[in-house]
């Protein structure tokens, strides 16, 4: 039976993080809704601006960490201390969905103004491919160890 020291260590770490993750998600969702409130009020009846938040599940977080590794995408079981879920940038995420898509640019502009120091990390169809959505991540006041991610996606 193969040892899974790294994965089990990460699972243990994950179950210590929910209070911070929840705080980040709640703060971020409130900030985003507040920031986009003037835009929301101005929408026509057929237009949509939906804000959704989510917490990354444990196994999904471990998978994401492994996927970000270099060659072979495989944990080195002899170096379990080298891995931490705190390196993930999207444990706590808020997604803004917009219809029609021409509202994406304005929402992005408003949010970039609110989070000017966050790191852009656009979602692409494939490496260096066309951009599917704007996204950025960074720390907010709710936690010093968990970063939040905002995505702005056309419906």
């Amino acid at each position, binding site marked *: 039976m*193969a040892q899974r020291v790294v994965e089990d260590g990460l699972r243990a770490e994950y179950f210590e993080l929910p209070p911070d993750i929840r705080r980040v998600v709640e703060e971020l969702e409130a900030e985003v809704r507040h920031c986009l409130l003037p835009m929301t009020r101005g929408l026509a009846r057929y237009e949509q601006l939906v804000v959704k938040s989510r917490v990354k599940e444990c196994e999904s977080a471990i998978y994401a960490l492994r996927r970000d590794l270099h060659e072979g995408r495989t944990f080195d079981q*002899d*170096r379990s201390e080298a891995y931490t879920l705190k390196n993930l940038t999207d444990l706590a995420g808020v997604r803004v969905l917009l219809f029609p898509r021409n509202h994406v640019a304005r929402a992005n502009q408003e949010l970039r103004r609110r989070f000017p120091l966050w790191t852009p990390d656009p979602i692409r169809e494939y490496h260096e491919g066309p951009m599917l959505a704007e996204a950025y991540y960074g720390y907010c006041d709710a936690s010093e160890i968990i970063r939040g991610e905002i995505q702005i996606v056309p419906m």
Partner: protein
Amino acid sequence: MRRFGTKDQILEEAGYSYNFERALYINRRLKKAFSIEFVEDNTDEEITARMNRKSDGRWEFYFNSEPSESVKGALERILG
């Protein structure tokens, strides 16, 4: 999506398939695996030369940075 043109073709014609989970080109019969980074950073000739190398029946991993024994062992178990 992988976009390496001829390298991709060379590997697939030689019986390698791409494993998305590990980002490796794998030939289970020959027990050889190329990382996508290695494929990206090396020429068609360099890749072909390694494909043609005689192997001793054990898994060979062509990476830019030599994987640790622990990683090799894990990959061998996963790849079968």
